[in-house]
């Protein structure tokens, strides 16, 4: 396949970026999207052009590092996958592909397609944990039976890989799906109850301070989420937040 690639190039955090056009020939439909990018970079380097920087690591859809906004969608046109799982068979010979970084004010660009998502980390420092020491002196794991449905729902929320596709896809750059997935995981489990009030208040506060937009329930995040995290979690967080505030 022969492709025309329009890619956001930006030298560093302070530089002004712009879209650059490259053409790439000999792309096989069995290649993954990132392998296509590798191929482009090899060719760019041969021509003495700085390769396109992009985040990637596990290349099997679980680490959450890859973060490309492809043809107007986070992680490209396919569903329930990350960029690294997108394969070139989803494109046609002669296609033009627009590749941009995940954009949001709290995700500043570091270089080209690499963005800084440490705002997600900071939200979790604010309360994304159960305060239990790792001493091993806890009670036996089975001393605390947990209803299967709650455990499964907590798992579904916990399957978030922190990639930021929800923020990137949201027209408001809201991080509600991410934060609510974290809040929900603990809210659904008995272990998380003790600190539930503080957790949701602190995490939401940090989210707001980072400068993410407001949720307007468009549902784009849920559709683009590689792990299919449900909007139910946002409703749950809203509930948790309101009751936490009522409690004091």
């Amino acid at each position: 396949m022969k492709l025309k690639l329009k890619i956001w190039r930006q030298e560093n955090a302070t530089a002004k970026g712009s879209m650059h056009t490259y053409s790439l020939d000999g792309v096989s439909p069995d290649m993954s999207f990132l392998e296509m990018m590798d191929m482009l970079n090899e060719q760019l380097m041969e021509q003495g052009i700085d390769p396109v920087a992009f985040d990637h690591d596990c290349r099997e859809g679980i680490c959450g590092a890859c973060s490309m906004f492809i043809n107007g969608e986070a992680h490209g046109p396919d569903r329930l996958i990350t960029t690294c799982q997108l394969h070139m068979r989803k494109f046609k010979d002669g296609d033009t592909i627009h590749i941009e970084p995940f954009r949001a004010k709290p995700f500043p660009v570091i270089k080209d397609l690499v963005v800084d998502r440490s705002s997600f980390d900071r939200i979790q420092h604010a309360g994304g944990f159960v305060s239990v020491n790792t001493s091993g002196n806890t009670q036996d794991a089975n001393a605390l039976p947990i209803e299967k449905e709650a455990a499964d729902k907590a798992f579904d929320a916990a399957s978030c890989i922190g990639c930021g596709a929800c923020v990137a896809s949201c027209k408001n750059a809201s991080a509600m799906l991410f934060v609510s997935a974290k809040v929900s995981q603990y809210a659904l489990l008995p272990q998380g109850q003790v600190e539930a009030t503080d957790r949701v208040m602190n995490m939401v506060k940090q989210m707001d301070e980072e400068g993410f937009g407001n949720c307007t329930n468009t549902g784009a995040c849920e559709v683009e989420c590689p792990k299919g995290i449900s909007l139910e979690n946002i409703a749950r967080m809203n509930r948790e937040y309101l009751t936490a505030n009522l409690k004091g």
Partner: protein
Amino acid sequence: MARLDAKIPEGPIAEKWTNHKNNINLVSPANKRQIDVIVVGTGLAGGSAAATLAELGYNVKAFCFQDSPRRAHSIAAQGGINAAKNYQGDGDSTYRLFYDTVKGGDYRSREANVYRLAEVSTNIIDQCVAQGVPCARDYGGLLDNRSFGGVLVSRTFYAKGQTGQQLLLGAYSAMNRQIGRGKIKMYNRHEMLDLVKVDGKARGIITRNLVTGEIERHAAHAVVIASGGYGNLFYLSTNAMGSNVTAAWKIHKQGAYFANPCFTQIHPTCIPVSGENQSKLTLMSESLRNDGRIWVPKKKEDAAAIREGKLKPTELAEEDRDYYLERRYPAFGNLVPRDVASRAAKERCDEGYGVNKTGEAVYLDFADAIVRYGKEKAHVKGLDESDMGLVRKLGKEIIKAKYGNLFQMYEKIVDQNPYETPMMIYPAVHYTMGGVWVDYNLMTTVPGCFAIGEANFSDHGANRLGASALMQGLADGYFVLPYTIGDYLADDIRTGPIATDSPEFEAAEASVRSQIDAFINNNGSKTVDYFHRKLGKIIWDKCGMSRNEKQLKEAIRKVKALREAFYKEVFVPGTADSFNEPLAKALRVADFLELGELFAKDALERTESCGGHFREESQSPEGEALRDDANFTFVSAWEYKGEPSEAKLHKEELKYENIELKTRSYK
């Protein structure tokens, strides 16, 4: 030849760890506040260690090359984590887990370490549940278990196909709590490029900020390396693209012995290589072997027809299929350990029975499981069990509930529907049992430098059983290192802060800078990946699933030549003081190019077959691995002497006092 002291405590095996804990030195809470510890790597081992050390009161500096600790490659572990809880009442015990692990490792691991691992395994599950890790549960609300290869009990805890992610997020959440309290200072996107020793003790590291290119000095009273394994030596592996040996190799060059480098795990169930541009291989969880049956066609002409696309696997009659694992190993069948399953697949493919275009793939078939589950479900629901359409439909639903995410992943990559046609799989490099040599306290031969998790030579001997890597990482980080490091640090309570302006730091920084400048200013023309790919091919072809003297010698020669060519011809674009991935890669590949040579040398010296290390010269008449206990019941620990091929061998004799050395049999 020097003997290594592993500092194994005296006494009966079941009491060693308890006695040891009772007798080692402690650091008082007030003094812990005066002590700094560096942890490099934030996977299960590094993350759990950093969190626990910070909870204890030490000042921790944690480093990872990823943009967040949560992305360390432990996250990709799918299947599960072992613990001798015996919740299923199927006869499991600490001893049994210990025994299975030693046997699974083909009797090349240290008894005392493995026993301790089995002992603390139960704490891990308690801990993770307390942290809110959503492990799989049954309808009674209790934890569920499944079975993994090489064992006869169900002791594997799991969280769907995401056990690694959930456990890592547990450790990460414990870290978050400490980062929030200011007890862990987290350095994301930082790569450790050297270890700094002062008066022979590890006192700090030199790092490069991967965003700004800044070279930084960080001092501490002890350094913990938790940087994972070196599977990317093979270029194509199931490791993450960034996984590297650099931290481990740098400490090796500073005096830490490197143990059993050739012990590599080739995982039997990975998605086969599809093309030349492939950058990475994807694992399909071993849990699939619980229900999938592995086969190739019985007749070569059928295999050829399948390869050419003239025949579909589903059209092949039952009697024309060779379920070779069930045939060769009736007792364990499809659940033989990984090394055995991998070699068997290679053997069939080498004989010409491979089923994809490259001839390097076998089938993993769920058709029988679908029917079996479907009938069960139909029976429970009181439906017609002879209606095959209905049975298949019900069966698929069950398979979907169990392995849905794995099936989806397979379909996205291969573009075939594994519910309808058997999966194709082939072995791929997955884990490295070898690594930095450590004693019972997990300290390397450099005082004050510790290695935990996959980075050390670990508790897995020559082969690792499924679901025990997560166990080891968390055991080291949560429950072992935090105790043993105190024994060392007890002598440091009066040392005070370590200065970073000493000549040792100066020298280490200067050497890092000169290496970076050399790459940037090199007038080469070939990319880093060009060399990495070549290195991977040499290692895979000559030091892969089966090895012989001639090939290994050739590998040593070729890797050396490639390394020389690399320094002459490599081209690194960009500048040293900016985000520069090719530069970061060049620094990593440079270390792989040295390790590769030692890897082949180690494989050459060990003329026996054991676990994942199969020497063609040492096999039974049936083609099974043949150990040589009389000559090789030891750990090979290599001391760096300038050139990898000049490394000096130290032996740690392995004593088996609680388990009888036997030929491993899964028949």
